[in-house]
C-alpha cells in the first residue's frame, strides 16, 4: 500500500469512525440513563436519512436537513418514551423488545412512503469538492464529517460536564432512584434523554445520507455497527463511544481494503476479543460479559 493510499484509507477510516461516534453516542446515552438498549436506534437513523431525502428533494437544502431531521427524530423520541417505554419502567428486557416493534413499524412505513429502491442525494453545496492531501485528492465532505463529529463530541462533553442537564444525566446514570427521591422530575429527564439519543441517531442519518445512500435495510446496518461500537468501547460513557468508534471505524475500513473477503469477520473478531479480555468494553462502566 503506497503512502498516498494509506493516508487516504486512514482518513476514510477516521471519517467512518466519526460517523459511528455520532451514531453510537445516542445509543450509549440512552443505555447509560435508562438501562435500555434501544434497538430502534437504527430505525431512528434511517428516519433521519429519509427526512433528509424529503427535504433535499423538495428544497435542495442539505443544511436545512441538518437541523430539521434531528428535530423530527427527537420529537418522535419525545412522544414514544412517555407513550410506550414509561409503562415498562424497570422491565428492561421488555423495554428493549418494545423497541424492536417500533423499529419494524418505522422501517415499513418509510418503505411504503418512499418506495423500496435505493435513493441517493448529492453532496451538499460547498462540500462537493476534493482537496489535496499528501499529494492525493480527498473529498472535502469526509473531512467535514470528521470536523463535525469532533465538534459534536466537544459540545457533548461540555454539556455532560458543565451544564445542569449534564449534572442531572450523570446523577441519573449513577442512581436514578436517588435522583427521583431528591425531587428531580425523572420522567421529564428520561423522555428528554431518550429524545436526545434519538436526535443523535437522526443526525447520524443526515450525515451518512450523501455518502452511503438511503435504502431499506440501512437501519439494520446502522444498528449492528452501533451495537459493535458500544460493546467494544463500553456502554454508558461518552469516552467509550469515542474509543469504540475510533477503533471500529478504521479497522473496518482497512479490513475492507486489505482482506475484502473477511472484512466483516474482522470487526466481529475484535468484538469477541474485547469481550474476552475486557468484559466491560474498553472504557465502559457496565459488565457486558462475565
Amino acid at each position, binding site marked *: 500500500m503506497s503512502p498516498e493510499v494509506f493516508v487516504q484509507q486512514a482518513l476514510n477510516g477516521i471519517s467512518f469512525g466519526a460517523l459511528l461516534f455520532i451514531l453510537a453516542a445516542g445509543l450509549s446515552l440512552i443505555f447509560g440513563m435508562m438501562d*435500555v438498549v434501544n434497538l430502534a436506534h437504527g430505525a431512528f437513523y434511517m428516519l433521519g436519512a429519509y427526512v433528509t431525502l424529503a427535504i433535499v428533494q423538495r428544497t435542495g437544502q442539505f443544511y436545512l436537513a441538518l437541523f430539521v431531521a434531528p428535530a423530527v427524530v427527537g420529537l418522535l423520541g419525545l412522544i414514544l418514551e412517555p407513550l*410506550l417505554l414509561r409503562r415498562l419502567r424497570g422491565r428492561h428486557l421488555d423495554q428493549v423488545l418494545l423497541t424492536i416493534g417500533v423499529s*419494524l*413499524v418505522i422501517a415499513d412505513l418509510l418503505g411504503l412512503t418512499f418506495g423500496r429502491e435505493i435513493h441517493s442525494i448529492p453532496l451538499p453545496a460547498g462540500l462537493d469538492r476534493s482537496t489535496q492531501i499528501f499529494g492525493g485528492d480527498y473529498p472535502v465532505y469526509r473531512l467535514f464529517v470528521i470536523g463535525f463529529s469532533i465538534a459534536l463530541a466537544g459540545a457533548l462533553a461540555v454539556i455532560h460536564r458543565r451544564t445542569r442537564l449534564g449534572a442531572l444525566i450523570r446523577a441519573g446514570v449513577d442512581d436514578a432512584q436517588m435522583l427521583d427521591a431528591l425531587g428531580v422530575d425523572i420522567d421529564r429527564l428520561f423522555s428528554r434523554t431518550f429524545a436526545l439519543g434519538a436526535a443523535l441517531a437522526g443526525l447520524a442519518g443526515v450525515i451518512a445520507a450523501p455518502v452511503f445512500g438511503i435504502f431499506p435495510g440501512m437501519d439494520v446496518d446502522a444498528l*449492528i455497527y452501533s451495537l459493535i461500537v458500544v*460493546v467494544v468501547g463500553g456502554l454508558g460513557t461518552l469516552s467509550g463511544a469515542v474509543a469504540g468508534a475510533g477503533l471500529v471505524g478504521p479497522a473496518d475500513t482497512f479490513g475492507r481494503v486489505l482482506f475484502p473477503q473477511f472484512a466483516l469477520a474482522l470487526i*466481529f473478531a475484535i468484538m469477541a476479543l474485547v469481550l474476552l479480555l475486557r*468484559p466491560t468494553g474498553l472504557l465502559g462502566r457496565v459488565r*457486558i460479559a462475565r
Partner: protein
Amino acid sequence: MFAGLALAVAALLVTFPAWTAEWESSRYATTILRDMLVLAILALSLDLLVGVAGMPSLGHAAFFGAGAYAAAIAAQRLGSDELLVGLVAAVAVAAVLALVIGLFAVRAAGIFFLMLTLAFAQMVFAVAFQAADLTGGSNGLAGVHRPTFAGIDFNGPEALYQLVAVVFLGVVLISWRIRSSTYGHALAGLRENERRMRALGYDTMRLKLSAFVVAGAMAGIGGALSAYALRFVSTNDVGIGRSIEAFVSVLIGGTGTLIGPVIGAAVVLYIERVLPSSIPFAETVLGLVFVIFVVAARQGIVGLARESYARVRR
C-alpha cells in the same frame, strides 16, 4: 384422555391435505400450513432459550439458516437426496455454529445476551452473503432437491407437507421430553434464579451453552425443512428478519409453553403471508401487534386464554 386427544390432533395434522382435498384452496392452505409448521419448529427451538432457560436470543436465524444452507449444499455437492444425510448435515452444522457463538454469547446475560446474539448472527449473515461460491451470495441457492427416505420420494407437495408435519410432531415430542426432564427443570432454574443454581453446584455456563447448542440444532432441523419446502435458501434465512419473526412468534404466542410458540408462529405467518394480499403494510401490523403484546399482554395468547378461562370458571 390427553394422550388420545394429542394423537387425534396429530393424525388430523398429518392427513390435512387428504381431508381438505375437496376445498377449493386446499393446495394453498397446505402450503401455508406447511410454512407455519416450519416457523413453529424455529419458534419452539427458540422458546427453549427464551421461555425455558430465560436466554433472550435475537440471533436464532443464524442456526436456522445454517441448517438450510447445510441441507441444500449437502444435496447439491454430495449428490445425495437421502433425507438423513441432509438432516444430519443440517443438525451438525447448526450445532457446531451454536457451540462457537455460544462460547462467547452465554458469558453475557439479559439484554447483553440479546445484543451479542444479534451481532454474531449478523456476522453469519455477512459470511453467507460473501461466500458466494458456496452459498450463492445474494442470489441464494435455488432448485434445492427434495429428499427421499426409505424409498419414499418427498418431491410432491403433499408428501413434502407430510414430511414437515411428521418432523414437526417429532420436534414437539422432543421439546416436551426436554422440558419435563431433570435437565429441562435445571434450565428453568437458570431462568428463575441463576445465582441459586450456581450455589446448588450447577455449572451454569455449561448448562446455558448446552441449551444454546440444543436449541441451535433444533433450529437447524427447521432450516433444512425450509430449504426442502421452498426449494430455495437465501440470506433471508440467516437474516435479522427471520430472527425477529421467531422471537415475535414466541412472545405473542406465550413463552415457556409448547402450544404458545406454535400459535404465535401461525399468527406471524398469517400476518406476513396472507395479509399482504389485502393490505400493503403487513410489516407495520406485525410491529404494532408485537408492541401491543409487549406492553399489554406479556404472557401472550396462551396467557390471555388462561386468564379468561380462570375468569369463566370463577
